[in-house]
């Protein structure tokens, strides 16, 4: 990926590679490692005790501060404090959106890219400021993270798996890789944030289900919603046998926790002006606005846990102190519009994936803003009851959403830290892209349902990468000779009006009406239908109430092997369906 920078760091001694997981965000970063004995991922707290380390650097009298200490300097030292720089990496100055840096050091153009001008050295007599490129800033930040991890682990950290947004370009990755190299960190792999979150969640679920027979991975469609500080990203992922395929992503670069902070700032400022009629508006001077914003963030965090929280800012403006208690209900009312925007973003990702909300089995909430209980409850009411929402307020086993992606990165780091660099690259390039995914579900046509009608029962879900093998058992009630039909099936959404359709005079309300009329109590459900039968197999002389095991094997070339046998019986039927020839498809791709 990146050319060797000829760094002075002794990365050559192969045997001792200490790898951690880094989640590097615009607002916060986290570092995590996996314990040697249990293999569990743990997030490392830095020397200040923070697990969510603000991605902020500040210079005071030539001394470098990072994390929470640096963030506090936004009030007194805004122009020498650098924030929100992750998304500037690898971009030209014209491409960046400088608005998150409004309260701190403003980005300037440095060699076409972004950079910052700060006073970072002690020469007080010569107050000449330094111009730092964004990659230099990133290097300094990563060096701090590396140092914290090294201190904690007692071993020199040399490598890391770093999480990046799913839409991070190759230029951005290259730039990040180079900055990390300079900080003495070899980036083993970049993994997308939503996938890292999912990996961390699944690893935990796996441990929880250990011992039981259900430790096998379920096939499910997971929507990972990463609600961050200044941006939010959503990804729809097909999880099949523990492998993940991203079906669609959507992004909002303005929506995040800082939008919620703004709501609180507005509210607090208005209340302040009500109390102090003659005072100046605290939003109009930079320092008081910064004070208010910092406090709003901690009020917001407190409201995710408790029912009420209070602002208290000393000498907000004109030497006046400010105290105000906010309860959660009021906050939720004020922020309602923004909460709805989160739901809309999630919905748009489902649409992009060409899916229905009924197709989503699980929603995994990640990112700091996901602590907000209202966001989870909004999603719960928007999605069908069958959808499982994983967040601290809806699921007791949920992992702290702020820690998910760092943990995922740590797990991945522990998996690949033994590998050679080339081995990792080889595995991540050619192999990944060329995997065909099944377009339709494969399943069995079974008797069942009402009036002995034939139904389709899914064996292999759509969007499953091949090769794949799935086994199912079915019970034959009557015994005797049976036919097993293997078929492809498609999913459709059936809308049936519920009982209460009395308000509308028109009894023959069609689909078109349903859309225009907003909420006419309708029941929507997912129905599978057989599309074409692939193969039939006959099994003779099955015992009454006997069980049949059906195994389906789809090879990489899409040929299919089916094996049917009675459990406990001998023999059975085995057959192969050849793959469709290329001429039949029409397109050789």
């Amino acid at each position, binding site marked *: 990926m990146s050319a060797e920078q000829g760094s002075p760091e002794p990365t050559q001694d192969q045997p001792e590679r200490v790898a951690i997981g880094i989640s590097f965000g615009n607002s916060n970063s986290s570092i995590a490692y996996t314990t040697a004995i249990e293999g569990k991922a743990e997030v490392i707290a830095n020397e200040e005790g923070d697990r969510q380390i603000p991605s902020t650097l500040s210079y005071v009298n030539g001394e470098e501060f990072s994390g929470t200490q640096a963030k506090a300097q936004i009030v007194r030292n805004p122009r020498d404090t650098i924030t929100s720089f992750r998304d500037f990496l690898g971009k030209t100055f014209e491409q960046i959106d400088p608005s998150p840096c409004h309260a701190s050091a403003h980005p300037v153009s440095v060699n076409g890219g972004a950079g910052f001008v700060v006073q970072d050295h002690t020469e007080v007599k010569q107050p000449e400021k330094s111009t730092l490129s964004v990659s230099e800033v990133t290097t300094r930040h990563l060096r701090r993270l590396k140092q914290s991890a090294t201190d904690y682990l007692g071993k020199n950290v040399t490598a890391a798996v770093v999480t990046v947004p799913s839409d991070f370009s190759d230029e951005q990755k290259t730039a990040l890789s180079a900055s990390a190299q300079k900080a003495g960190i070899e980036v083993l792999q970049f993994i997308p944030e939503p996938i890292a979150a999912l990996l961390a969640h699944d690893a935990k679920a796996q441990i929880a289900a250990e011992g039981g027979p259900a430790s096998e991975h379920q096939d499910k469609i997971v929507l990972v919603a990463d609600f961050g500080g200044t941006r939010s990203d959503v990804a729809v992922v097909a999880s099949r046998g523990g492998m993940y395929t991203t079906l669609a992503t959507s992004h909002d670069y303005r929506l995040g926790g800082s939008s919620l902070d703004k709501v609180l700032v507005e509210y607090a400022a208005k209340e302040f002006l009500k109390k102090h009629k003659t005072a100046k508006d605290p939003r109009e001077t930079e320092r008081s606005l910064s004070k208010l914003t910092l406090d709003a963030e901690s009020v917001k965090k407190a409201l995710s846990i408790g029912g009420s929280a209070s602002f208290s800012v000393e000498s907000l403006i004109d030497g006046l102190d400010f105290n105000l208690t906010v309860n959660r209900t009021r906050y939720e009312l004020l922020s309602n519009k923004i909460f709805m925007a989160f739901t809309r973003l999630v919905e748009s990702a489902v649409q992009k994936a060409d899916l229905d909300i009924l197709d989503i089995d699980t929603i995994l909430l990640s990112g700091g803003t996901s602590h907000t209980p209202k966001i989870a409850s909004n999603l719960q009411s928007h999605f069908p009851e069958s959808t499982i929402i994983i967040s601290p307020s809806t699921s007791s086993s949920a992992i702290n959403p702020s820690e998910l992606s760092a943990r995922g990165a740590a797990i991945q780091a522990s998996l690949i830290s033994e590998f050679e660099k080339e081995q990792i690259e080889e595995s991540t390039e050619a192999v990944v892209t060329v995997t065909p995914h099944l377009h339709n579900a494969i399943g069995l046509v079974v008797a069942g349902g009402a009036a002995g009608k034939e139904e389709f029962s899914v064996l292999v879900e759509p969007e499953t990468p091949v090769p794949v093998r799935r086994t199912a058992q079915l019970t034959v009630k009557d015994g005797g000779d049976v036919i097993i039909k293997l078929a492809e099936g498609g999913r459709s959404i059936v809308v049936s009006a519920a009982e209460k359709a009395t308000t509308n005079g028109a009894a023959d309300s069609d689909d078109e009406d349903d859309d225009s009329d907003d909420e006419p109590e309708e029941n929507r459900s997912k129905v599978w239908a057989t599309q074409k039968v692939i193969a039939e197999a006959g099994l003779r002389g099955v015992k009454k109430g006997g069980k049949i095991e059906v195994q389906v094997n789809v090879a990489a070339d899409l040929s299919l092997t089916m094996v049917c046998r009675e459990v406990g019986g001998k023999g059975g*039927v085995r057959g192969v369906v050849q793959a469709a020839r290329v001429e039949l498809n029409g397109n050789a791709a």
Partner: protein
Amino acid sequence: PSLPDGWSAEKDFKPIDHLSAPISRAIEPVGPHFLAHARRKRHKRTFSEDERI
């Protein structure tokens, strides 16, 4: 469902149609199951061959 009368096939198996054309998508190169997949693919092994090792 029971076998219809007169149904017969060679070795009791009758292939009827082929699978539909697949969609090529990229798997995320993350997690233990992917690494197992990558290993199989690099060595061109099948599931059962992999299990034997």
